[in-house]
């Protein structure tokens, strides 16, 4: 009995001397929820760095990064846990799938606010979202894929995706096809689907079959599985175009073009504004090339190795797109 009493007292003592409980007074606290793993994912690395920069400029603001892993079914519970902790005023995240989950969490924890980049949902007072005009992103890599395919004597380009989702169906793929057709009206698109975001072997098989069938350039929208496309391109001596930047590091010899999103800048600007008290709640914005949030990375070694004429063509396309030509107007999503 004495032992049990001692153990109970010891446990009570440990509980009381911790230090995370309660809600200490503080200016604000920000949790960055990464729906995946930040390391190795440029879009999430920029999410973290952008939010961190905004927080660093506001002394006293607390900041925590929480990774949710790849299992989508666990994201809702993870978000709830962050809200339930009672420690965070603002949850910052990035993924088109997140707004729906944030709405569910906001219904249970109305005091918590959410900023979701790379997503769109308007009219929810607890949530601010900003969507990139990925029609433009798709268009840029589509144009390069089309022009390079024609240069190599092919009239087909590939798109290998992890799965179907609205942003792919309504923005990336139509933009990519528009780019292909702008480069050459005779271009055709071959679409293949992996079924998940991690199976690089399956991605490599699909890519190899396309490369063996006279496809010269593939756009990979496949997360970690995209490594398989890069590997297959290396074996076939073919090319890959990439979204979201940093593709050049993954396959410097085969990734010939990377569209970019200025996610770090966007997250920095919006988190700063929200921490400064700007009322953006319920607002859903769309940003694009004309604002400088969608662009193209010219610094890849494989891109620099392309013929001068092709690169000059791309420079023209980028300059025109920044002027809104062609106009990929998106008022809502």
């Amino acid at each position, binding site marked *: 009995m004495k032992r049990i009493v001692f153990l109970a007292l010891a446990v009570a003592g*440990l509980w009381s001397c*911790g230090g*995370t409980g309660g809600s200490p007074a503080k200016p604000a606290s920000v949790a960055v929820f990464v729906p995946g793993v930040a390391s190795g994912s440029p879009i999430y690395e920029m999410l973290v760095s952008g939010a961190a920069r905004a927080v660093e400029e506001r002394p006293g603001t607390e900041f925590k990064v929480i990774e949710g892993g790849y299992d*989508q079914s*666990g994201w809702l519970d993870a978000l709830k846990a962050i809200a339930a902790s009672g420690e965070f005023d603002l949850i910052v995240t990035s993924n088109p799938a997140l707004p729906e989950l944030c709405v569910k969490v906001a219904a*249970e924890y109305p005091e918590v606010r959410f900023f979701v980049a790379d997503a769109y949902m308007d009219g929810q007072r607890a949530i601010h979202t900003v969507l990139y005009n990925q029609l433009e992103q798709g268009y840029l890599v589509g144009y390069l894929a089309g022009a390079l395919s024609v240069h190599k004597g092919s009239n087909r380009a590939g798109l290998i995706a992890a799965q179907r*989702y*609205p942003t792919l169906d309504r923005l990336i793929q139509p933009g990519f096809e528009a780019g292909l057709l702008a480069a050459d009206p005779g271009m055709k698109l071959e679409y293949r689907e992996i079924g998940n975001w991690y199976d690089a072997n399956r991605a490599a098989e699909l890519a190899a079959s396309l490369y063996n069938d006279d496809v010269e350039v593939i756009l990979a929208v496949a997360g970690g599985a995209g490594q398989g496309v890069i590997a297959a391109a290396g074996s076939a001596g073919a090319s890959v175009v990439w979204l979201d930047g940093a593709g050049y590091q993954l396959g410097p010899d085969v990734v010939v073009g990377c569209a970019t999103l200025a996610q770090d800048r966007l997250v920095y600007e919006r988190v700063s504004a929200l921490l400064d008290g700007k009322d953006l709640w319920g607002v859903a914005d769309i940003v694009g090339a004309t604002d400088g949030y969608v662009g193209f990375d010219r610094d890849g070694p494989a891109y620099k190795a392309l013929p001068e004429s092709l690169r000059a063509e791309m420079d023209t396309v980028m300059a025109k797109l920044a002027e809104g030509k062609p106009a990929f107007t998106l008022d809502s999503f």
Partner: protein
Amino acid sequence: MNELCALPPPPQSRAWEALRRLALSSGLALVLVFMVSVLVSDEPLKAFRAFSLGPLNSARALATLLEAAAPLMLSATGALVAFKAGHFTLGGEGQVYAGAFMAALAGAWCPEGSFGLLAAVMAGVLGGTLVAAPAAAGKRWAGADVLLVTFLLSQAALHVVDWAISGPFRDAGNNLIAMDPIPQASLLPRLVHNLPLTPVPLVAGLVSVGVWIFLSRTRCGTMLALYGRNSRFAALQNFPVRSFEWAPIIFAGAMHGLAGAALSLGSNGTAVRGISGGLGWNAIGAALVAGGEPLAVVPAAVLFSWLDSGARQAAIFTELPPDAAMIIKALVIMAATAKPAYTRLKALLGGRKRT
């Protein structure tokens, strides 16, 4: 007067033994949480406090904990009945997933409101039952190995439901891989405004009580438990062994399906790919920790839910990995079920000494 006259009196309730086992499991879990905090975290006290108290720090957190434990109570009660009958079913995961899928399908398709909710719950039960049925039939008519057949069927069900959710039944307008949303009016109602608490914990508690009454206070339950211990003896006593060969497996399937329905009809609002999230496996663990006592399933499920929730809270504040709960749960299950092995080992060693 018939063969039941030959039955021994109903066994004493093993509530005290189960309580002792649960208290030991909870104590062990706390010690393990502290050890993991010390070993893994730079701030062990902070991690320990977040782990142990985080899930209890507000009414909403407590309601979330109970709500998360409720499907586990249902699944574990189902598994426990099957185990009592001597059927070691490993099919829970697939049955939960099928239940979640069927419930989401019915919830989205049926007229919204109470009818839609009822239809979704029934469909969930049906989903779990359908996955369990071939194993029950195999046992009844072909003497199939329940352990192997339920496991294989569960794996097949996982793949089929995965395909269905991400393929033909996927909501094309959702960036998550999920089915069409169930209308709000067909979702489980909240018992208290602003608290994520539905009737599921209450239902799960009542099911546990019902199963306890059945197993410890009815002749049929007593016969079932005896059948589970010695099926030949039960056959010699003219117990309805033919029914005992399949009915507990079906009951377990139905309970797992009901748990799946609770997942879809709760805050998820539909079936998301991977929604079962190991619930079927956790149910086996909770049933083992409960030590065959239906009433003990409720605190065992709460203990597991607390570990999951606590690990998430600790991961928010410290460097503790969220998967720490899995390791602790595994060790608690091993410790809670070690007594028979210890007794057997002791008996073996004693026998050797005598010889």
